[in-house]
């Protein structure tokens, strides 16, 4: 063996990784690693994934930590294979997840549709990057449609969580697994390239969770019971229709009970900015500055993107206000805002697509423009 390889081996041995211990002290972590450790704390049994920027820290971290905890890690041959490995592990009743970025998540759409149709729990993290096509590796929010509108074929929904800080991203993991298990469906955690890469001090801990139903549908070997079948093909007349109604009822329950949304200074606002994820972080800065200038502006931050906080936005639109939606895209969530506002107030959009990131000043400028346009 060459000396270069020997040197590298020694160096790696010296830098043996110390996993963060579960304490209430804060530790500095980047989003990708935080979500991975949080998933482990939440009891993820198996991680299957394929490298893609900007979430490669997840696969690397999981490859190191999962075997340490006696859990399963496989680097699959493609995203297509990864989502199907998730499908298999989930069908046996395990908590399982994958992570990817936009182009890889496109490849997973078939698998996600199958998870939804077969009523299987799973967590899929999308660390969004610029698109369409190969795009770039800069952050983006242009997969909102893909995530909230099903993405794959057929009439289904996935729960979509849109965290906007590293702490919230970590918190989302336990929530995502629980929602997936409770409702037997795929849950998408929609992060982006900034959130995945940025480092923030966070607390990692397992919190008391919700009570979950037993997985007696799981494939565990038909010992002392009839066979369990996990399927999404229903050929008999009316059978698939019934499945769809069943899913619809479940989705309505979720829309009623699982909406998460934050509001800030909306009550007296003339302008309400709606944003999620990293866009919401930037918006907060702009809104703070605008208030300092005396502009009456508030913001609404959806945390669940599906179910969308339509009720909260609709209520806010009962008073005449301008709704400014800010996204890192050409405008996707803005359509849901328009639907919720239902014409009661004007809805305008500001965004930067293809990996562009708006600055606080750009948004502040836009807010200023809106006040001059509509001042009475």
């Amino acid at each position: 063996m060459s000396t270069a390889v020997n040197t590298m081996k020694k160096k790696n041995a010296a830098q043996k990784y110390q996993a963060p211990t579960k304490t209430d002290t804060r530790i500095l972590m980047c989003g990708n690693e935080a979500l991975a450790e949080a998933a482990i704390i939440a009891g993820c049994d198996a991680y299957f994934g394929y490298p893609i920027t900007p979430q490669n820290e997840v696969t690397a971290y999981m490859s190191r930590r999962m075997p340490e905890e006696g859990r399963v890690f496989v680097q699959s041959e493609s995203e297509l294979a990864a989502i199907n490995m998730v499908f298999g592990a989930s069908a046996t009743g395990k908590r399982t997840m994958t992570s990817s970025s936009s182009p890889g998540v496109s490849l997973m759409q078939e698998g996600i549709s199958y998870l939804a149709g077969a009523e299987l729990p799973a967590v899929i993290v999308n660390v969004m990057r610029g698109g369409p096509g190969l795009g770039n590796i800069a952050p983006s929010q242009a997969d909102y449609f893909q995530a909230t509108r099903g993405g794959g074929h057929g009439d289904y929904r996935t729960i979509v969580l849109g965290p906007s800080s590293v702490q919230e991203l970590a918190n989302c993991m336990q929530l995502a697994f629980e929602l997936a298990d409770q409702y037997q469906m795929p849950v998408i955690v929609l992060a982006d390239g900034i959130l995945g890469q940025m480092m923030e001090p966070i607390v990692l801990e397992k919190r008391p969770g919700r009570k979950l139903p037993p997985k007696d549908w799981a494939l565990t070997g038909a010992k002392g019971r009839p066979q369990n079948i996990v399927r999404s093909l229903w050929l008999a007349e009316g059978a698939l229709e019934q499945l769809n109604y069943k899913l619809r009822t479940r989705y309505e329950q979720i829309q009623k009970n699982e909406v998460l949304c934050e509001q800030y200074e909306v009550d007296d606002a003339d302008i309400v900015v709606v944003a999620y994820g990293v866009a919401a972080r930037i918006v907060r800065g702009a809104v703070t500055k605008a208030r300092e200038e005396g502009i009456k502006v508030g913001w609404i931050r959806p945390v669940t993107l599906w179910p969308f906080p339509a009720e909260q936005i609709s209520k806010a639109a009962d008073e005449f206000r301008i709704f400014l939606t800010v996204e890192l895209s050409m405008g996707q969530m803005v359509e849901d805002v328009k639907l919720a506002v239902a014409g009661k107030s004007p809805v305008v959009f500001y965004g930067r697509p293809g990996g562009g990131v708006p600055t606080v000043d750009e948004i502040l400028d836009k807010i200023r423009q809106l006040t001059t346009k509509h001042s009475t």
Partner: protein
Amino acid sequence: MKTVFKRTPTYKDVPTHYCPGCGHGIAHRLVAETIDELDIRDRTIGIAPVGCAVLEYDYIDVDMIEVAHGRAPAVATGMKRTNPDKIIFSYQGDGDLASIGAGEILHAGHRGEHITVIFINNAVYGMTGGQMAPTTMLNQVTATTPRGRTPAEQGYPLQVSELLAVLPGTIYIERCALSGPAGVRKTKKAIRHAFELQLNGAEGMSLVEVLSPCPTYWRMSPTVAMKWIEEEMIKVFPLGRLKG
């Protein structure tokens, strides 16, 4: 009089949707018999393909899952890695395994997943109406090769067993044929060996390629179809143990 041959319990006693003379009926029975003989019904999980055998769970009485076309080896990987004590088998046709699923079977074999794969090769796509498969023979007329398969247009028939035998992660590869009682018996032995390897904790993938008749889309009677396997198919797909 004592019974010397009777239907095995794990092969559910229900009518199947398969055509008269279809090889799936025989292959299902061999898998079911193996499961009963090894007494592993309560720890076996099977994976049904997309193809004529998509409703396999209606016929084989173990926990079963239906997966997307070709993805069975990846699903099997997810299942076996998280449940090493269970017996995981996939049962796939030539479209499922050798066409859309070519990547998945290659990598499951390459990684040496501890699974058993039953590959039913009938040289045609049955479920969708008789189109060309990667294993369709030269000059064979199918729905998408109306003038017969030619190397220039569609390439040669794919020899899956030979391809996978190259990978270190595959530990047992055998090709058999449902071409008559003797062939069926040999196929049964191979299938049983493939399951036994997993049962004994063998560290690698076992695959049995089964040449199987499709009387409907070969446009032959069942008995002539079996003859065609013996006389024509084994020229391109030689029988025998390639590995293990």
